[in-house]
């Protein structure tokens, strides 16, 4: 597992949009750009490290207060501009270390900022915008809830440097009173605990795993392939419902989320009787 560097987000943002700068008035840690994908203009968003950011605990690629409200602003712009016209796709490129862990953040209610970002993405999806998430690096915990997890379709690179998880290893081991070695051993047997993206893919939450030769220095062919996959995911999202039910209806979920399916069928039956 490679250490978090924050390079991949910028690399892929540039690869897909041709540039990598924030919009005027935005913090340097949020990249926003409108760029062509297929025959339309999508809005691309990415959170990247800014070593000189205003908030000391959000300088390494964490999604903090400013990042969350900036994402919410830039996503809501797309919803507002296209109320009566074509619903443009929104693409979240994800390489986010986590949420920001700081006292300032808690004092200024990062829980609400986080909800506002997720609200914007979720509201865009419900309004009919195809919201596509491309995980190119880390997608951890609250960072992913704010930026990426409300998408209609989630794509991720099939690569060792990609990780989707509820909490990074060291912290998860501490909280569950285990050593990192014990945690890794358990994670091999228990798919939802695994840090391996291929195990994550078994849960049925991903639309697709993408093979990319070199995620940190993509070739022109890599980029073309990813663009084609994004076009496919956008079309696929448009053809389905705007809620998140596809995740539980997926093939993977039939196998790995049997308990969820049981809960749903039993609760539905009892609800009708109550």
């Amino acid at each position: 597992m490679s250490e978090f560097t924050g390079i991949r987000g910028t690399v892929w943002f540039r690869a897909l949009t041709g540039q990598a700068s924030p919009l005027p008035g935005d913090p340097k840690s949020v990249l926003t750009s409108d760029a062509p994908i297929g025959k339309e203009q999508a809005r691309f968003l990415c959170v990247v490290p800014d070593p000189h950011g205003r908030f000391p605990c959000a300088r390494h690629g964490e999604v903090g207060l400013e990042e969350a409200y900036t994402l919410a602003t830039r996503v809501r712009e797309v919803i507002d501009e296209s109320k009566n016209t074509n619903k443009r796709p929104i693409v979240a490129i994800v390489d986010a270390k986590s949420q920001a862990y700081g006292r300032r953040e808690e004092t200024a209610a990062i829980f609400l900022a986080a909800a506002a970002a997720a609200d914007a993405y979720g509201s865009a999806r419900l309004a009919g915008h195809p919201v596509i998430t491309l995980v190119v690096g880390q997608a951890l915990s609250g960072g992913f809830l704010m930026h990426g997890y409300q998408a209609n379709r989630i794509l991720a690179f099939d690569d060792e440097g990609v990780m989707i998880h509820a909490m990074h290893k060291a912290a998860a081991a501490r909280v569950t009173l285990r050593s990192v070695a014990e945690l890794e051993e358990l994670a091999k047997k228990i798919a939802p605990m695994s840090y391996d993206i291929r195990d994550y893919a078994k849960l049925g939450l991903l639309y697709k795993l993408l093979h990319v030769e070199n995620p940190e220095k993509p070739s022109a062919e890599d980029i073309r392939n990813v663009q084609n996959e994004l076009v496919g995911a956008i079309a696929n999202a448009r053809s389905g419902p705007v809620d998140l039910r596809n995740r539980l209806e997926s093939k993977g979920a039939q196998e790995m989320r049997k308990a969820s399916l049981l809960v749903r069928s039993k609760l539905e039956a009892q609800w009708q009787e109550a």
Partner: protein
Amino acid sequence: MTDKRYGANFIHRQSFIELDARERATALFDAGTSRELLGPFDRVESPWLAMQGVTPQEDDGCVVMKGKIAGQAAVVVALEGAFQGGSMGEVSGEKMTAALDLAYADSKKGIPTSAVILLETGGVRLQEANLGLAAIAELMGSILLLRKYAPVICLSAGTVGCFGGMSLAAGLASYVVMTREARLGLNGPEVIEQENGIDEFDSSDHALVWAIDGGEQRFATGLIDALVEDDTPQVVDAIRRFVGKGVPAVHRSTQVELFRSRIKALDTSRQWEPNELRTLWTAKSATEGKQ
């Protein structure tokens, strides 16, 4: 004027905090109208805990009840803080999401069905890690659907409070109700101390913890909608009031411009006294202020 905290009610009150999840849920309904769904006798428990040597519970620490509140259809989902810290696993998460989806389906059919979510939780259950995180994401999607048709009311009474991913669920709610004993925040003090050191957050400083995350502070800064005493009739009154109010004109989590400008105006070169924020951010909540 007497201090409300030690007012006459102090000795007569009926503690809500001392109730377990099932008793809390029952207390919120009009008498005799509630029925538990997928209760412990249905024995749908976590499939992941036993294989890790953790004893599961037959309701997975999540109580779902349907009935009437203030004469209107409602569902209450209560997390049991005493089981695995109220954490969200696959089963408890799906119970909550499915209950909200059923309330949404009924609301769309013309029976507005409010949801009341009782949050005593540290967030994701790490033994079920990615399925817990996914459950929270799906729950958030379902809150966004339901809250257009019927209010989603979050109540954190304490003493676990509401942390981690589930604080985002509270952030999306139509209304949030807390007691002084409850706390609401994304990262718990221990986690911040572990990640960024004791200088950033001394988690043993309980006064500081409550000054930041406590119900009184969250109410005084306009981030929640009601502060109630740990008194069952008061809690019930607040919930009935918000069920009666229905869907708010504006949800707090859509007030992006307001909160973004507030964040921009803060001096980030130093830590703030939580009290400073009370003067900068008025107690009038962003949702009620717009009505």
